[in-house]
């Protein structure tokens, strides 16, 4: 039987926050495996954003809001969106270069729909999304003039990791992907589509990771063949099976994303084996990670800082606000993470990367923005502050200023209303604040709770 603290930890990492209703559901599970299976039972159709504007400046906000709402409120199994976020930061494309929200949505919906299925299929399919063809210049990769950008990053960042291929492998991989390009429809970005141009493809036989490639009759499949070699028969320059190298490279990245602590060799071996044994099927692979005892160690439980997207999702969940109201998307860049705009092809990093004075200044501004909407109607004559798990009336706030004890009690009312568990230092600091606050300052407790260290940890 999983413990309550294990379930809470598991939910925070897989569903962004531990909603009390989900904690109750999973506490009824017979085992951690059963709880993880419940979490991974994602809907076949995760829905899709419907744009009401033809302008990308509006669509980018609409797509962001749709996705954050799925994460915070709408998805019955938020791991589906969390995994899409992982792939979005792994198989990176940025709209800064792609320049079309329609194309970004196509790629993102692929990650959302198939992110927990076969890694091989996902990698092959994402390679020819127009967003990726543009982002890494494969739409400029021709037999007559290869562009090695995608071929290199496919091995370095997407599947194997740096050091596990040679420059000749890069050239071979780039050759295999020649000819996959896009149509160009200036002014009609929605009509830009994938295009296969056989005469731009270099169909000469190559060697990749010691294997012969590019020899098949179906030349359009030569690109996908490179991924198959990396995930099956390839051998790295150091003589290791590429499949094992890929499993370890990707397992480390998954561990860093979900656990955060420094992994032991054992847990990496265990998770990597789950990858190779399942032919890189994500669900059993991830299940091996989420059920491993090391995932529940103190180091892992205290091992992860909430990335800005997770932080915003946690704010929305704590306040019940919809993203359209609650997400200050203009502050996300400053916090260091804006959906659809990863900083570069290596994606977002974890933990330390998020922590600096400037970024936390923006987190505080974000919390302030959210609290403004929580309190907006209260200050403009409304009778109560509506929180997901409590309604706190004007009279209650005012009356609580009467005594220090009542002022401390209101700290609990706000924290409970937002379903946030405060640690001892935060609790003491807020009690101290409340005991000196006038009644109207008590509303500052909302913003202080929303920026407390507990909110910034995953």
């Amino acid at each position, binding site marked *: 039987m999983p413990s309550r603290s294990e379930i809470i930890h598991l939910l925070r990492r897989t569903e962004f926050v531990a909603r009390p209703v989900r904690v109750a559901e999973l506490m009824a599970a017979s085992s951690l495996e059963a709880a993880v299976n419940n979490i991974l039972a994602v809907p076949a159709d995760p829905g899709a954003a419907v744009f009401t504007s033809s302008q990308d400046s509006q669509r980018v906000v609409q797509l962001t809001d749709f996705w954050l709402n799925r994460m915070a409120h709408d998805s019955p199994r938020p791991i589906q969106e969390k995994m899409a976020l992982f792939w979005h930061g792994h198989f990176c494309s940025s709209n800064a270069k792609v320049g079309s929200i329609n194309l970004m949505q196509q790629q993102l919906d692929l990650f959302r729909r198939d992110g927990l299925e076969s890694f091989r299929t996902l990698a092959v399919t994402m390679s020819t999304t127009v967003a990726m063809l543009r982002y890494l*210049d494969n739409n*400029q990769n021709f037999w*007559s*003039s290869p*562009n090695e*950008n995608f071929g*290199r990053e496919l091995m*370095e960042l997407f599947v194997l*990791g*740096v*050091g*596990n291929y*040679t*420059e000749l492998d890069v*050239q071979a991989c780039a050759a295999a992907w020649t000819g996959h390009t896009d149509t160009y429809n200036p002014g009609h970005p929605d009509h830009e589509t994938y295009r296969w141009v056989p005469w731009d493809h270099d169909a000469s036989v190559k060697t990749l990771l010691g294997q012969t490639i590019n020899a098949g009759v179906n030349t359009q499949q030569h690109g996908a063949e490179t991924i198959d070699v990396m995930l099956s028969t390839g051998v790295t*320059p150091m003589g290791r099976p590429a499949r094992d190298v890929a499993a370890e*490279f990707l397992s*480390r990245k998954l561990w860093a994303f979900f656990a955060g602590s420094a992994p032991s060799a054992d847990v990496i071996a265990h998770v990597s084996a789950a990858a190779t044994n399942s032919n890189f099927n994500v669900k059993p692979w991830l299940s091996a990670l989420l059920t491993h005892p090391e995932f529940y160690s*103190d180091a892992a439980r*205290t091992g992860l*800082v909430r990335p800005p997207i997770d932080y915003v999702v946690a704010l929305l969940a704590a306040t019940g606000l919809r993203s359209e109201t609650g997400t200050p998307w203009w502050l996300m*860049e*400053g916090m*260091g993470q804006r959906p659809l705009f990863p900083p*570069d*092809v*290596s994606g977002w*990093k*974890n*933990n*330390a*990367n998020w*922590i*600096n*004075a*400037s*970024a*936390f*200044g923006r*987190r*505080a*501004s974000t919390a*302030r923005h959210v609290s403004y909407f929580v309190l907006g109607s209260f200050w403009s004559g409304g009778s109560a502050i509506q929180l997901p798990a409590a309604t706190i009336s004007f009279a209650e706030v005012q009356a609580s200023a009467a005594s220090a004890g009542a002022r401390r009690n209101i700290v609990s009312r706000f924290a409970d209303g937002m379903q946030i568990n405060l*640690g001892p*230092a*935060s609790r*003491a*600091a*807020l009690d*101290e*604040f409340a005991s*000196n*606050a006038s009644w109207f*300052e008590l509303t*500052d407790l909302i*913003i*202080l709770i929303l920026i407390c*260290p507990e909110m*910034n*940890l995953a």
Partner: protein
Amino acid sequence: MLDRDISTRNALAHLNSIERDPHALDRRRFLQLVGMGAGAGLVGSGSKSLLDMITGHDPSTWAVGPVTSDQGILVVVGMFGGNDGLNTVVPFTDGNYHDQHGALAVPGDQTLALDGQSGLNSRLPELKRWWDRGQLAIVEGVGYDNADQSHFNSMAYWMAGRPHAISTSGWLGRWLDGYLAGTTDLYAAAEVGQSVPLHLIGQQQRGTGVPDQRPDWGSTFDTRSERNYQAMRSMRGAGGRWYEAVAQAAVDAIDVAGTVTPFVPDQADLPSVEIVARMEVAARLINANLGFRVITVGFGDFDSHAGQPSMHSTRMTELDDALVKFFATLGPDWLPRVTVMTFSEFGRTSHANAGQGTDHGSSAPQFVFGPNVKGGFYGQRPTLAGLGRWDRMAYHVDFRSYYASVIDGWLGGGAATVLDGNFENLGLFARAPGQLEDGSVAPLPASPGSPSTFVPVTPTRVADTRIGSLVPIGPIGVEQTLRVRVAGVGMVPATGVTAVVANVTAVDATEPHFFTVYPGGAPRPVTSNINGGPGRPVPNLVVMGVGADGFIEVFNSHGSAHCLVDVFGYFSTTAGDRFTALSPSRLFDTRTGQGVRPGKVGPREVVEVAVAGFAGVPAGAKAVVLNLAATETDAPGYLALTPTGQTPGGTSNINFFAGDTVANLVIVQLGPDGKLLLTGPGSGKHALADVFGYFGDSGDRFRSVSPRRLLDTREGLGAPLARIGPQRVIDVTVASRAGVPASATAVVLNVAATNVDAPSFITVWPRGEPQPNTSNLNLAAGQTVANLVICRLGATGGLTFRNELSECDVLADVMGYCVP
């Protein structure tokens, strides 16, 4: 072949990192705590251990090291993505260049000519100006052996200053390790941007992330905000490494915001192009003289695999615009101390690809420029002859040699340690930092925060709104502000002035009101200096930072009131006397005859008071800080203190009506014999004075701050929410709060008392010392009274306040502090 030990994860994780290891020991703070005997007390207090105090440090305490006159400042501009060096410094006479770069090649007549064989990209006119002045060094062929084609590995190697190594530290961070030598300073090196890059991470030290727009949270200083901030500080506690890191980051955000806010414009006032805005902020941070020696910025994207012509031109334009903005914003006095350098993780291939782009290359030229740079070509341009489609250019200058030239030539040395070995110094600099072409050293520019020494002047009235002297005629209206020029007026010089010592008097007030005095051009703080009302002139001494424009500003809260400003001296970065704070003690009292002949002071009487050699003031003191009080006054009048050897008259220190007991702080020069003359009209009055410190050849320097509220018992700020007195004391922590560093020895506060229920007096003294027989504010029922207080800080950087006879609320605003 790539090194098999390099994993992308490791290389990338190290490119950006947390600002500071939460477990790092702050040695300076530790020694201070131990030195003050704080250890035992804190351990015994139950809630916090000594270790908590050391690790849970307050970064505002670290701003202790502004730039000195012989120190160089380095601005590093990163061009991320791999800049095409061939189209930046164009070798237009090289046929291979045109063959290989194809359509991307720039014709010679479309470049800014350098030497007949090469020209600068036409979008770089600002760099061309530096070249024409002979102050742009173009270092050709900078790179490293066996260049890595991965952006991330190559960037990591460049930032680390270590080719082909997994390094957890960067070259500027290791320089910082040596520069700070075990101490800590949040304001020594910074990235203007969102995160702290690897090159600013040292083995012990880390650079700071300064936001590239005016921060929101942390930039307001009202009581309610300060209480919010205090709650955030208190949330720091045990909870694992990341708990401590995020809790500290939130506090750092507050402290950095509070420190840089006066220098960072609103976003609306900053240029829209990110790198241009960042370079403006960089220049402003240098102007502020917070102590920054290294400022780094970065921008992109330079990764021009496709569409290079428009992409590269845009980047070049942005770079040039950023440099124009930087030098336009930088105070000209800083110029001989500033050098700018560029870097990029690699150049690009000499062969163009079919997508109007170039692929990842190897070596490239880099720029180093500034007034003290020796312009010209350095290194060697790599040949393009025989390069195939995927061949990369050779490199001729190891990037460690490039760095070593800057570390040893401009940052004070230590390159061999920073770079793990000796690398050639290219000799890029014509002169040492601060040195001008004629060999003299440029004086350090003044800013309100610069440590300064005191220069007394013959008292001069610089504003009188009743007659329109130097200011518009007419009282200051409700919520109106009077701007008063102080630098360059009378004996106060136009430059080098950080703060002014002036008596500001409110006259003919129509309602109870207050004046807020603050540095010219600064945001108006939530503080007050003079609390006046109808029926009486109310003076108060101010020690106020002077704005970069040479002004101070006086804001009036209610009704209207005339304003007089008399200047008694100024603080300077170039000349003057240092301050020694004393434990308060009574210097003289005409009621008892202590230190003076007994009996009231008559209207035409000149009473000589010996100062040097008494009450802790040594022989040789140049000026003293006294609190002068008048009491048992028989008629309206005033008191004045004048150095012996000068003729009394024309100025005043205290104004009173019959029956008043009033006090005002006085900073006055001593006569050659170390004495003062006490005079004043108005028949009989007793006078007494308490000494708080003196100015002389040795001692501490003064740093003014933009005023910040430290204490308000009405709000529970800095002390419990309760009036103080009678005979009750409050202990107020000053150091590490409201912008006062832990190293402060004394503080300049404006203290006000309000909600006074009966006549009384307030005494302020260093915490932990016996109560002296002195007073600072004399209170009357129903009045709000303010007076400047300059007092040495006692145990744990605190002061004790005591109201003797009645109850009142007390407010205190920080105006500045003294540091060794």
